[in-house]
């Protein structure tokens, strides 16, 4: 419909999804000259050509348009180069839909989701397939694998869905595709999983020159794709009270202790008061913590413990990745530049190995480092300079070698630019973060759910909030907030926290 308000010449060239701005509030229109107007409007978000939504601090922008009268009616005859679409948040929900493309973690055979906003309509299947076949975004380069790439494209710019069988047929064009079964398997998994997520698609077939690439037939919901989405469920949480770690049910609103019978086999150490930021491996066989002065890392495993004093200073809370490795960031003692280290699982005395992060500038400080549940991405909260309250929430792919050892972090993606002061940030799922942070317009730190590639979702307000955690439940997660008075709060309804119990830390294993 919008195309009808353009002159025919402009309509033929207009690609609305090239650049989508989500507006907030009212627009002001100012006529600069006869047939030329300038529109000024506040913008709260932007969807780039790849469909990635980035919420932006609300700021006005101005653009000039030329008008022309066609058949007695005004039509837009020229707009700025690269102009795509302006629409309100409400219209965005009507015209676009967040869809998920999937990349692959070949070391753990896991899907790595990436949310994109794509235009609703008959072309959604096509645009999702097209997006899936595009190259890996830069922040995941080297961290994930994909069957797509610049040498592969849709044979026809359309992925039709048979209305009867609901089968989406992806006709591909790429040299040597038929002779590369590994790549076909990747494409099968990625396209199958992403397209089956669309309504009205119950099977997916991949074809080259009209011939199906899938020897076992089209992919459907029951097909084994070789990769899985991460599903985490936490049955045991550890509540640290003083030096003691108490097994609790973290999904319960009251965070009650688990019955002794259920935790009889657990062998948990006492954690000295000099250690903080305790993290536990998913199987609770290994613990890690940093010293209160953040200059030492403590590791415990099967009754053995080791304090690593020589890694660096200003260490972040340690984080376990799905491989069992311990990640920690800080400042190198020699160069005083920000560093990221990884300590591989197994022996508690294993030395920390630095991971290359070339994009971390001197003077920047990593406040938080957490590894995503799928093990492919690192969440970093980076403070620009010491004492500055301007934090950035960054997501960067973890580049691993062929043995699966982390070697570097890819170029980061700024996840929630609206957040300026981040108290804590954790992975809630493979697509969501939970963050305790303050936006520009906020007076104090608040809790948010941050869908990667989505709008911030505020959690209930709580004074004195210092940390917010996400407890995976299998279906999703439940947030647990900690206030500076040592009270842990669980969520009680959509807008209220429930002061569950007191504790120094709630440790969710595997994070």
């Amino acid at each position: 419909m919008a195309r009808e308000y353009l002159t025919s010449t402009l309509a033929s060239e207009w690609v609305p999804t090239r650049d989508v701005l989500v507006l907030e509030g009212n627009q002001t229109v100012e006529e600069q000259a006869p047939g030329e107007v300038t529109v000024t409007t506040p913008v709260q978000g932007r969807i780039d050509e790849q469909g990635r939504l980035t919420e932006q601090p609300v700021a006005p922008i101005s653009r000039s348009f030329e008008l022309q009268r066609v058949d007695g009616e005004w039509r837009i005859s020229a707009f700025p180069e690269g102009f795509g679409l302006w629409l309100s948040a409400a219209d965005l929900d009507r015209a676009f839909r967040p869809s998920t493309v999937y990349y692959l973690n070949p070391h753990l055979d896991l899907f790595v989701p990436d949310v994109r906003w794509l235009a609703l309509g008959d072309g959604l299947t096509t645009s999702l397939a097209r997006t899936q076949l595009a190259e890996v975004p830069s922040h995941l380069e080297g961290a994930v694998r994909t069957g797509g790439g610049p040498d592969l494209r849709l044979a026809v710019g359309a992925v039709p869905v048979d209305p009867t069988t609901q089968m989406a047929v992806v006709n591909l064009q790429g040299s040597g595709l038929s002779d590369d079964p590994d790549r076909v398997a990747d494409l099968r998994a990625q396209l199958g999983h992403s397209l089956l997520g669309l309504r009205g698609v119950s099977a997916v077939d991949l074809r080259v020159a009209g011939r199906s690439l899938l020897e076992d037939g089209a992919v459907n919901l029951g097909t084994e794709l070789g990769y899985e989405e991460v599903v985490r469920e936490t049955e045991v949480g550890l509540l640290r009270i003083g030096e003691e770690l108490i097994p609790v049910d973290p999904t319960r609103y009251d965070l009650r202790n688990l019955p002794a019978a259920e935790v009889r086999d657990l062998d948990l150490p006492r954690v000295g008061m000099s250690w903080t930021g305790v993290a536990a491996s998913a199987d609770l066989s290994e613990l890690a913590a940093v010293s209160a002065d953040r200059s030492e890392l403590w590791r415990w495993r099967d009754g053995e413990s080791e304090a690593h004093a020589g890694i660096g200073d200003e260490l972040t809370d340690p984080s376990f990745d799905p491989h069992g490795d311990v990640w920690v960031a800080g400042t190198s003692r020699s160069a005083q530049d920000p560093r990221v280290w990884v300590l591989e699982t197994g022996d508690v005395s294993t030395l920390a190995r630095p991971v290359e992060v070339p994009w971390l500038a001197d003077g920047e400080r990593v406040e938080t480092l957490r590894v995503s549940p799928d093990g492919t991405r690192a969440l970093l909260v980076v403070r620009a300079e010491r004492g500055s309250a301007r934090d950035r929430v960054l997501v960067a792919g973890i580049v691993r070698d062929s043995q699966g050892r982390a070697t570097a972090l890819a170029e980061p993606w700024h996840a929630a630019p609206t957040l300026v002061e981040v108290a804590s940030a954790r992975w809630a799922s493979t697509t969501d973060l939970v963050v305790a942070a303050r936006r520009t317009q906020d007076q104090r730190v608040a809790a948010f759910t941050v869908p990667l590639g989505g709008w911030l979702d505020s959690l209930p307000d709580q004074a004195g909030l210092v940390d917010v955690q996400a407890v995976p439940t299998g279906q999703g997660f439940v947030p647990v907030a900690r206030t500076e008075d040592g009270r842990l709060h669980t969520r009680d309804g959509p807008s209220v926290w429930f002061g569950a119990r007191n504790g120094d830390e709630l440790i969710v294993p595997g994070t």
Partner: protein
Amino acid sequence: MASGTRPDIPDLRAGETDASAGRAEAPRRVEAGAAPEAGATGASRSTGASRSPVPGHADRDAAPEEPSDVAEGAWWYAWWGRSLRARVITTTVLVGVFLSALLGTVLYQQVAQGLVAQAVAGAERDASQQVALAQEAFDSTDRQDDSGLTQTADDQVRSMAGNSPEEGRRVLLMPGLDNTRGAVVPPTGVGVNAEDLPPALQEAIAADPTNQQVVVVPMNLAGETDQVTSVVVGSRVSLPRAGEYDLFLVYPLVREQETLDLLRQLFYAGGLALSLLVAGVGWLATRLVTGPVEEAASVAQQLARGRLGERLPVRGSDELAQLATSFNTMADSIQLQIRELRSLSQLQQRFVSDVSHELRTPLTTIRMAGEMLHMSREEFSEPVARSAELLQQELDRFEDLLNELLEISRYDSGATILERHDEDMVALVGAAADGVATLAERLDVLVRVHATTAPVVVRMDGRRIARVLRNLLANAVEHGEGRPVDVTVAATEHVVAVSVRDHGIGLTEQEAAHVFDRFWRADPSRDRTTGGTGLGLAIAQEDARVHGGWLQVGSEPGRGACFRLLLPRQDRYAVAEAPPPVPGPDEAAQDTRVPPVVLALASRAEEDEQP
């Protein structure tokens, strides 16, 4: 056929005859002793002409040879007509070829129609599927700007065309005639151009956009030098923002054409094989039938040539065995009758000869007594004297009759000996005319001789030919009714003709047919001035025959008769076939010309006598 019109080239004829094994062989066969049977056949078939003077003619009558000047182009016709096997094989092959061609044509048409129908049905199915897929693709495209749509349309068209447009379908997408939105997506195609499409097809789509429009037409296709018959299926698709487009799918019937070509070759090969098979079967079948028939024909020919002991072998008990048995029975019967006739004839000839010889001795005695009585008649009374004269007169006649009977019996027994010399026919005719001068004078008949002054030399037995001429002249004068008798001598290099034409009472056709019979008289009641024996013409004909010539008669009652003697001038030739009829009274002028005749070499025995 044309031989009668070419009397002037007997050498060529003779040469041709000589070159022909069949003709050279014919006289030899007759000499083996078939003359009696052949002679009977010849007499029964000739009208107003003597039987063939050349023994070989009997052989020709039994197995006529092809004319020597048969056109070369018609040899097969003669061959076809002569051979049952050839007819059967030719007929079966022709019928087989015709039926094969008919069957092949019908089958080919059926197969071709089936292939085309199948191709059309397949094309319709495929096009329906392809158009549905294309429409789904256009509906599901995510780019609706011009370049995006064009790219999608191009990709879709290429995708539908497949990897090898030469073998698969060819595709063309172009705006429909009723598309008013302009060519948002320009026409795009693979392997086919818009101008090569039948214009009516797009109009048909515009008129009925909901249905497929199908035509089968020769098309100019990219990569093909010649037009290729193709199934063209036109359908309507709708492009987002671009409106109604016509999608044409062209299916070249290349494989079908190749199949038909292969089929045609197979049909040709099969037809040829079938024809050969039919010919072989025909040959085998006719061999089974015609083998015995040919054997029967061969044996029949041997029988006809006088080898009366030839018989057919009898094998088995089928129809052919019955035929052989019947044939052998018939041959036995014929052989028996011929033997009886031959022995009867020989008995009769011997009887005549014996009687004649036996009568000669008493006749001599009687004659001597008669002479005495005749010489002494003066001494007798008138009646006795008259009786003595009559006795003498009848004794002369009796002696003549006896001599002629002896001559005839010599002919019959084959004991005739010719004494040929080169003699002048003109002189011989003059002498004969002089011989009948007395009789002519008595009957007041003028004998006119028409001949050149130059002698016409003929190698002949002058005594016998003179006897023939005398006989003919005497007959003419006697039956000339006082009107002149014309004797005409005509000659060519190889043949001499002597015509003796009277203008008397003539002969009826029936009389002419018997004029050379022994003891036959035209009118028994008629007064016989010359007192002939009734054997003269028979002897004359035999004389002509032994010379290799012909003696013929032509006559009209009341307008006279004409006897024509034709003789070869050299003894190595014989007049092979019956010459043309003797000209009638109105054509008397033709007597001065020798009629066209066919000459043949005389028998080997006679040839051997040549120096």
